[in-house]
């Protein structure tokens, strides 16, 4: 018991020390994240709901297929009908800005892990910690450092959602066929050339899977993030729980699911380099072209 107490006290001291001594740094971080998160949110909320529905439906048609586009159209119309469009855009903004930050931080970290066994050894337990530590534990310090609102919500989301981005970047680079790497080196690549011309392009599928997972994990944080004022659909679920209003909670949850399904399918298709209607059209035109690629077999 005594030990447990002293660790808790230690954490307190650390948090207070940071608050006392690093306020300018914290402010700078808050300003940066706030700029990204609010910028994305202002942009998305400004789009009229009708235009938003059309854009997402077209994206579904392009990346996934016409059946899915029909589903997306109906589901989005339902969200609009429930009066949750604005909340959904706030949530989307939170997810996108958290993902953006996770990508910007996670890819270089994943690359560093792939290059150095020592970095990998240091980073791996930190990632485990980020994923297993209950979110409430860092929600409190996040609120203490950054106040309430979108910024701490985004930070908490990034902490929870970034690990797969790092892991899958690392894995993707390590899994590049060793002969590709040998070819790169044999033709005189510098380490940077090897990274950008050989490793990253061939790790792209894995990296995109990381983006997809990060988005999905961000979505699973929306309710928790709204507890510290991140707003969006999480708020509706939360008030539903607080007031025991099953209907409101269900509507908010349904909208989260709609957003999740659409984002999932669209981002999954990114790693595979296109599918659906447009791909079939472009294949057809390639087959019709006189280049005679079919003779290649």
């Amino acid at each position, binding site marked *: 018991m005594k030990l447990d107490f002293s660790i808790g006290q230690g954490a307190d001291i650390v948090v207070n020390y940071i608050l006392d001594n690093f306020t300018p740094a914290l402010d700078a971080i808050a300003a940066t994240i706030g700029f990204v998160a609010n910028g994305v949110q202002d942009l998305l909320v400004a789009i009229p709901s009708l235009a938003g529905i059309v854009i997402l439906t077209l994206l579904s048609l392009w990346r996934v297929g016409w059946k899915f586009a029909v589903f997306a159209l109906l589901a989005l119309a339902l969200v609009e009908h429930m009066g949750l469009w604005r909340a959904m855009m706030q949530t989307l903004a939170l997810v996108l800005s958290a993902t953006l930050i996770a990508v910007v931080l996670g890819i270089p970290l994943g690359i560093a892990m792939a290059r150095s066994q020592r970095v990998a050894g240091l980073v791996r337990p930190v990632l485990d910690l980020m994923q297993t530590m209950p979110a409430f534990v860092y929600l409190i310090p996040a609120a203490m450092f950054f106040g309430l609102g979108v910024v701490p919500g985004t930070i908490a989301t990034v902490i929870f959602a970034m690990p797969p981005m790092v892991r899958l970047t690392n894995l993707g680079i390590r899994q590049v066929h060793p*002969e590709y790497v*040998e*070819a790169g080196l044999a033709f*005189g690549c510098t380490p940077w050339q090897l990274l950008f011309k050989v490793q990253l392009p061939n790790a792209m599928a894995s990296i995109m899977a990381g983006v997809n997972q990060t988005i999905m994990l961000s979505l699973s944080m929306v309710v928790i993030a709204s507890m510290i004022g991140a707003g969006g659909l999480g708020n509706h679920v939360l008030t539903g729980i607080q007031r025991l209003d099953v209907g409101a909670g269900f509507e908010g949850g349904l909208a989260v699911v709609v957003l999740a399904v659409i984002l999932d399918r669209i981002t999954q298709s990114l790693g595979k380099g296109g599918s659906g209607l447009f791909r079939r059209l472009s294949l057809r035109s390639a087959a019709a072209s006189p280049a005679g690629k079919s003779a290649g077999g």
Partner: protein
Amino acid sequence: MSDLQTGHDGSSSVKVRARNIYKVFGDEPERALKMAVAGEAKSDILAATGCTIGVDNASFEILSGEIFVIMGLSGSGKSTLLRLLNRLIEPTSGSIEIGGQDITRMSRRDLITLRRREMSMVFQSFALLPNRSVLDNVAFGLEVSGMAEGQRKDKAMAALEAVGLTPYAHSRPDELSGGMKQRVGLARALATEPGILLMDEAFSALDPLIRTEMQDELIRLQAESSRTVVFVSHDLDEAMRIGDRICIMQHGRIVQIGTPDEIVSKPANDYVRSFFRNVDVSQVFKARDIARKSRLTIIERHGVSAASALRQMERSGHDFAVLVGRDGRYHGMISQDLLVEKLRGQAADPYREAFLPEHHPIPAAEPLSNILGRVAESRWPLPVVEEDGRYIGSISKSSLLETLDRAG
């Protein structure tokens, strides 16, 4: 292949010189290296230290312009030896000179320059980058070395043309068949115009017909612009077909280096011999290998009168003589009887009239298997000439039978 001869009189320069190179894989390279230097076997070293000896005290020279084949069973260290030459694998000890520079002591930067300018590589499973078009794959080496886009595309196009794949420039690698992919691999390696081409089992993944085709292609490209080729293979027929010299490895050591026929006729040990158990010697030996000068009288056509030629033939006891020009080129073969007859008939040009009819020389590079029939049917010995027409000797029925018998 014709560089072989120059190589042997030492007029050809040394391109790669490796001295006492060792490669130890594992955590205790120092101790393993000491044991290896003391001559202990690979298996004992593995048991004692947990380290694998990849290459064990290899010293050799590769001549400029030759095709040097590294052969051996799986795990004998062929790929490791090849990768030591461009330092994809770092040697544990020893020195490797390329064009007089010791690459083992080169800085990273110089090494990159060397790889860009001086050497390139062809891989067993092609290693074409799937995200690039065929043309961009071929241009890869040039792109990496910073050549401007227009220029490198032109060069890559030229390299693609050399392997006959111009129409596929804008295809993706996965749209090509295996043989075509490896042509692209070859074009990529040739595009940078390297002095040395490193090829690791480059044709092993191809089916037999395509494989032979690619071997011919390599020999052709080699003849057009003579590069030094270091070729890893585990296939003896391939080694024989394309190799000027063959280096045979066993457990990381080099057990023999020699020309194909040296290796067939004087194998260093049973391991080497075991490779040849099923080899058809008539494929290995070329006409030049068994042609002998002593069997016929050689007469220089200009300056030797027909009468004195006849006397020479009588003195040496040969029924036939070969007429050559001042430059050593083959002109024709005459028989003693015919020459006597023509001399009696006061022919204007007795030599010309005494030529044996329908008696065409054999090219020196022809495998014995292709000339068995002709030698068997011919009543006279058959002359053998080099590509430039120089007479190098003759083959008789008895000499051919003797060779086949000795080697068999």
